[in-house]
């Protein structure tokens, strides 16, 4: 906790200026050892100092060094920022010097972690920054920025304030039953207030789901018999967008064929092994996996060969699509058609001739339509985007609904106060202001603390 950390704060590569950031108790002392110019241990806080970084007697670079002394700094610790000339070798050399003189290389997100632990950032802001570091697309980056500026915190805080007003009023009603100063909270009055809060929470949750899409992208499963044009479709999609993303992660590693960006949203294209009844154990595993993928996909693209009648296998595939979000791609429309479109009801159908590059853009348009991607692009991103936050908001929505219902049944207000209080606490947990054991567990599991 106490050691001094350093990292390159700017994008690595050749640029005009790079910044090396050092944070911790010894940051000023360490940089001072490398610095030729004023004695940095004696300069005032929040100043920029001109000089050279030296290695023994050799001048490495001409630099500006900013000194920020605790506590009014980003991390709450002493911070030194070395502005050096861009250039990979020079920047790396300076970082190396700080490390040789007692710094430790910072882990990803460690500066914000320290800021959080020192009370400089609330949990929501800290998580947003972690999201920012991992942001895959520009839209995701913008969304993370919203989190950092505290708009989410603000929305949650407003809701908490409203709840607190209600709680306070109920309390006054109880403690001063004979006084006319406070409005007497009746079930009717509470209904108005709670339904408003309930709606706000539901809105946040709905938008959070969108937030998840922005952050993690859409998982699109592609299914079809061999030879119906699955591979060509994939190639066309990936080829046309010319944006193959290579860093594939997680459990889908072996099936994700590639990623494309559509309106700023990552589409994860996942090929399935095809659904076939099989006796073969190994293949059976593949089939089980496919079923799982279909269940977890946000969208399924099912391809059929229009020039052949539906086979038993095709019908099995159709069967597996029930109650899912699906686009039917009817390929080979350039050939005489053998399938009645009624078989595909109620799904939307895109007719293609992939080999002739016909209809592929229609598929993309259909995806945009199904997920309102045009809207997402232009929207204000005030979403909660990580799983911890979303699950808490879900809890809040459930609780708000419970309160709403028991209020309708005429439950005594002072009893409902128990739930209103819990809702207030839960909302606080989202922004990390309630003290909860679980919250601590969460923090301890996220950040490596103690020895």
């Amino acid at each position, binding site marked *: 906790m106490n050691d001094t950390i350093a990292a390159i704060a700017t994008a690595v590569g050749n640029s005009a200026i790079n910044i090396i950031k050092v944070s911790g108790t010894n940051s000023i002392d360490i940089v001072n050892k490398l610095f030729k110019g004023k004695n940095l241990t004696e300069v005032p806080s929040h100043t920029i100092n001109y000089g050279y970084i030296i290695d023994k007697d050799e001048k490495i670079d001409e630099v500006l060094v900013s000194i920020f002394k605790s506590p009014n700094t980003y991390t709450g610790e002493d911070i030194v920022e070395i502005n050096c000339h861009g250039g990979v070798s020079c920047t790396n050399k300076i970082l190396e010097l700080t490390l040789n003189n007692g710094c430790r290389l910072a882990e990803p997100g460690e500066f914000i972690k320290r800021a959080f632990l*020192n009370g400089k950032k609330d949990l929501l802001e800290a998580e947003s920054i972690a999201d920012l570091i991992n942001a895959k697309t520009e839209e995701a980056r913008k969304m993370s920025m919203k989190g950092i500026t505290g708009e989410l915190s603000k929305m949650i805080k407003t809701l908490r304030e409203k709840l607190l007003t209600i709680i306070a009023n109920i309390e006054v009603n*109880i403690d001063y039953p*004979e006084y006319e100063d406070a409005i007497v909270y009746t079930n009717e009055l509470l209904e108005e207030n709670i339904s408003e809060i309930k709606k706000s929470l539901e809105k946040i949750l709905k938008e959070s789901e969108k937030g998840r899409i922005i952050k993690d992208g859409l998982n699109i499963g592609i299914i079809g018999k061999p030879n119906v044009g699955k591979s060509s479709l994939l190639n066309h999609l990936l080829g046309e967008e010319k944006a193959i993303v290579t860093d594939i992660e997680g459990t889908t590693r072996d099936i994700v064929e590639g990623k494309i960006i559509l309106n700023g949203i990552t589409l994860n294209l996942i090929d399935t092994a095809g659904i076939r009844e099989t006796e073969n154990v190994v293949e059976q595993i593949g089939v089980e996996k496919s079923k799982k993928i279909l269940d977890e996909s946000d969208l399924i693209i099912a391809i059929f060969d229009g020039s052949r009648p539906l086979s038993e296998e095709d019908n099995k595939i159709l069967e597996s699509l029930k109650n899912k979000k699906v686009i039917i791609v009817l390929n080979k429309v350039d050939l005489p058609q053998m399938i009645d479109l009624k078989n595909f009801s109620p799904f939307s159908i895109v007719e293609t001739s992939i080999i002739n590059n016909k209809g592929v853009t229609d598929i993309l348009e259909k995806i945009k339509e199904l997920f309102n991607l045009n809207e997402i692009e232009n929207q204000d991103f005030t979403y909660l985007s990580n799983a911890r936050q979303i699950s808490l908001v879900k809890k809040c929505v459930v609780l708000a609904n419970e309160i709403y219902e028991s209020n309708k*049944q005429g439950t005594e*207000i*002072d*009893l409902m106060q128990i739930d209103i*209080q819990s809702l207030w606490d839960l909302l606080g947990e989202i922004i990390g202001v309630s*003290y909860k054991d679980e919250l601590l567990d969460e923090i301890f599991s996220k950040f490596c603390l103690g020895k």
Partner: protein
Amino acid sequence: MYEVIVIGGGHAGCEASLACSRLSHKTLLITGNINNIADMPCNPSIGGSAKGIVVREIDALGGEMGIIADNSHLQIKMLNSKKGPGVRSLRCQADKTTYPENMLKSLKSEQNLDLKEDLVKELIVENNIIKGVITESNERILSKKVIITTGTYLNSDILRGHNKVKGGPHGEKSSLYLSDSMKSLGLTMRRLKTGTPPRVLKDTINYEECQEEKGDEKLLSFSNFFKPVYNIESQHSCFLTYTNQTTHKIILENLDKCALYSGLIVGVGPRYCPSVEDKIVKFRDKERHQIFLEPERENGNEIYVGGFSTTMPEEIQEKLIHSMEGLHNAKITKYGYAIEYDAIESTELQMTLETKKIKGLYTAGQINGTSGYEEAAAQGLIAGINASLSLKGLEPLILKRNEAYIGVLIDDLINKGITEPYRLLTSRAEFRLLLRHDNADIRLTEIGRKIGLINDEKYNIFQNKLKNIKELEEYLTSNKILNTKENNDYLTNIGTTPLDGKISAIELLKRPEVKIRDIEYILKEQFDPTAKEQVEIKVKYKGYIDKTEKEVEKMLNLEKKKLPLNINYNNVKNIATEARQKLETVRPLTIGQASRISGVNPSDITMLLVYLKKEFPHE
């Protein structure tokens, strides 16, 4: 040589002396005026929201206040009777003559208790252990324990208009030297303020212009054990009137004349019990404020003007009183005043109410920064009990926040500290659904019995209640209600769905529309009233009670995380300076206690846990 000396004969002092003497310790109560014992210098009422439950708790533990109040009231009512069971609370208008008389009788009937009229000027302390007291008449009296319950008398000033006079409530002497003696022992003291309204002559009020407020038409009692005996019909009424624009104008025009706004008062007053000047200045938009006219005595002619606490000079008080409906011709018998007094910083205390610095020295009541007769009595009882347990070498009594309002009170005092006189409120109790009026005995009587303050008579009554509850539960579980036409007609009539087959009575009771009196009707039975109440609450509020129990469990888990006694908070990195100071002052025993200290935030607790993990990995 006494075992215990109690300094001060107010509500805390009475409970402390009674507890100690009843637990067979030779006890001495020293007070300035024996005729002023258990005096009620302010409002003529006992109980109220949360406070009424405290009186039930005092009674369940074997204290005296409930029984005396039952025998000395002019009117009694159940507050919040239309709200849920967690917030119901009793309040009575106590008779200011008979209440102290009855309490004095109780004190005089104790063999182990001596009363002495004097004031204490100095504490005798050796090696940080209390040895006794020295009185103003220069008597040295030795004892093993001393409990200070001086109320508002410590170094007190009476303030009205621009006058400031040394003295206690209604002309009593102030205790001038004890505060200095405490300071010289290293105890931190602070200055607090409270006030009282004028009293007017009963016969000069025009009741036609006021609204009448009667007592409940149902027999009620604070005592958990003894049935109430009074005549419902002969209860006295209170009356309600209001301030008006003329009243407000007079106050605003004369603000510079009152002690509160002229800069004369340095002590901090309670926000929840503001003077009328404060009400008008801080809530300027409000058109009127309620004023309660409350009788003080059966055989007396004074009426207490509740809600009108003031520090205006006498002639302005006259004008103000006369500006209100019903009081145009009222004659003031006593003028309102403010009183400033010394109190001990409550963070000087342990949860037992023993001071951290002086072994054997306890403080209880308003000296600890609380307000209210009930809060005082509760602390007096706990201090008395703990002094006794310590003399006997037994574990102390520390009530938890989920066990009693008294637990909430003391936990708040010790951990949150005081910035204004502390009053119990239901909102201070996070588990209030468990801390009910109706189950005070179920929560605490066994504890009182174990300590030795619940005699056989009370204990048998209590055991009988438990037996009745158990029997009723069993009866309702085993008794089935059939889907006869008669039953179903009745059920339809009360707005619930008729039965398909038979159902146990307790299952039927779970329906929100079905009350226990409906079950009585259907089964053609008359259940025991207290058992009936308990079973109904248990069944009806099960969902909410379970939720609260879960919260309690979370709190108790944090209580289990002990903080090492030798922890040095200066070594804990990255906690806020305020938190560090508070932790160092309070020196909490558990993480749970630390998290309740005001000024200690969740992030500080996180850092504290990080520190513990690092430095004390095995604890």
